[in-house]
């Protein structure tokens, strides 16, 4: 039986989007593989979330136990290891998220099963399961195929597909936890909320955003002058915040903020998927990048292929002049 086991993800009482997004691809995969979709939900006080997932016409298996109040890689690995033996799914899929990447590779090693990480498309052709994933910040696509194995392990990229609409009512089934006592080696301590800075970029109308192309912080005044001329706030990609050029609370992307300004000007940002996920809500996007193949251009409305340092001074000057 080619069943597809989808491990849903939730945090702080809410199902994360990836849990629904996987339901856009799992049913077709299961059908192609001659099985059905089983959604696994692990947590504590899960009734509401279980019902919500079941509304997508799937069978939801719930392990509901105070032991699973918060995610713990050690516990998840133990539970999934036992469930793979019990259920023998053809595929175990979960999100390529801070949660998924924290236990799936260890599970793969333990069970001697293959893993493909961060798949963004799946196809089952002539008995072979193949995944598309990306390399080099999304500049290269790779087709990776599984060799035959009892269970294929996959982590699926967040935001790669749209979540489907809820459909028919499915079934919720409680499953006994294979884990009977707490784990000794790893303890969840607490969540620490994101720091709040002086500017909340999620509320900005105009954002000037810089990436690795800024090169060094002594180039920042150039950007500040442009931002001042058009009353924009300054944001940055992960590369820019890691380098300390831009405060961390102004990072745009999956690990930072999702922004929705009227105008987003991306300069020296190649536009890795994680960045685009954080700014695709912008109404108008201007991108300036040296590389004509930079993925940022796929979401741009206006594009300039050039060195940002050759463009920005003149752009600022002209804007000041036109605005009078």
């Amino acid at each position, binding site marked *: 039986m080619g069943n597809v086991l989808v491990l849903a993800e939730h945090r702080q009482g809410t199902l994360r989007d990836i849990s629904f997004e996987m339901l856009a691809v799992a049913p077709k995969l299961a059908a192609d593989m001659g099985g059905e979709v089983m959604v696994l939900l692990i947590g504590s006080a899960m009734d509401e979330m279980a019902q919500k997932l079941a509304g997508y016409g799937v069978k939801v298996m719930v392990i509901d136990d105070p032991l699973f109040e918060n995610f713990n890689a050690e516990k998840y690995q133990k539970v999934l290891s036992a469930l793979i033996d019990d259920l023998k799914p053809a595929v175990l899929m979960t999100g390529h998220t801070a949660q998924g990447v924290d236990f799936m590779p260890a599970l793969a090693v333990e069970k001697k099963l293959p893993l493909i990480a961060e798949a963004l498309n799946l196809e089952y052709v002539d008995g072979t399961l193949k995944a598309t994933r990306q390399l080099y910040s999304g500049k290269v696509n790779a087709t990776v195929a599984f060799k035959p194995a009892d269970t294929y392990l996959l982590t699926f990229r967040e935001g790669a597909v749209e979540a489907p609409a809820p459909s028919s009512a499915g079934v919720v089934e409680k499953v006994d936890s294979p884990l009977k006592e707490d784990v000794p080696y790893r303890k*969840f301590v607490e969540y620490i909320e994101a720091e709040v800075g002086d500017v909340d970029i999620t509320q900005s109308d105009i954002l000037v955003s810089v990436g690795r192309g800024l090169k060094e912080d002594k180039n920042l005044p150039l950007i500040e002058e442009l931002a001042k001329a058009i009353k924009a706030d300054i944001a940055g990609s992960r590369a820019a915040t890691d380098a300390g050029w831009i405060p961390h609370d102004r990072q745009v992307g999956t690990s930072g903020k999702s922004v929705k300004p009227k105008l987003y000007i991306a300069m020296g940002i190649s536009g890795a998927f994680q960045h685009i996920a954080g700014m695709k809500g912008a109404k108008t996007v201007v991108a300036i990048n040296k590389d004509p193949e930079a993925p940022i251009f796929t979401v741009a409305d206006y594009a300039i292929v050039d060195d940002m340092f050759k463009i920005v001074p*003149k752009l600022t000057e*002209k804007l000041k002049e036109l605005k009078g």
Partner: protein
Amino acid sequence: MKTYVCIKYVPDTSEAEVKVNPDGITVDSSRFSFDINDADNYAVEESVLIKEAQGGEVTVISIGPKQSDVMIRMAMAKGCDQAVRIEDDRIAGHDPLMVAKVLAGTVRDKEFDLVLTGCMATDDWHMSTGVALAEELGVNHASMVNKVEILDGGRVRVNRELEGGLLEAVELELPAVLTIQTGINEPRYAPIRGIREAQKKELKVVKLEDIGIDPAEVGVEASQIVLEELSIPEVVSAAEFIEGEPDEKAEKLASILIKGGLL
């Protein structure tokens, strides 16, 4: 504190166009400059910070070609004590599970408290090697770590970076593997004296057999995944590309922004 830090020599493709070789499964890296993987650079810094605070030693491990010795010497110039470089073309580099087995071979049977890796390589983006390595070694792990605090009693507290800026604090029993996230610290520049001293530090170059690994267990035959094809995704852009000399482009963009009422 005895620490191992695993680092990778990767091409910088941030502003470069990438082309696939005729074999269809490798990229033409002849025009790229190579250096330490971004997250690994932070892992090196963290390992040296831990050594400075706790005492002990740091060993660098890397799988790569002779050219990567420059990167390894730089890590030693910053304070790492010794290094092992595995140079062997029989490793299935496309599969992090195979890479983890090789790295484990250099650490297994040795005493250690911590193994640090970067949480992701900027070339292949798996985010899998460190966590797989922990399982190979039979020790605890935490991934995407952006703060490390060594506690008394053989434990460590780390902050893990979740989505949307949220962090999760967890405690682990040592020994453990931590995959380090970028931004955790400020990687230092190597001091001149360090660069000189690094030349005298030991950099051992080994083959798979030297670290007790059967090449048949980590090669493309052993890997359960096959890299079938690389392709360049078409950049489908609906954007209006503004052409001309740089000054003209800047002027055109300015008038589009003003006339379009975008400001």
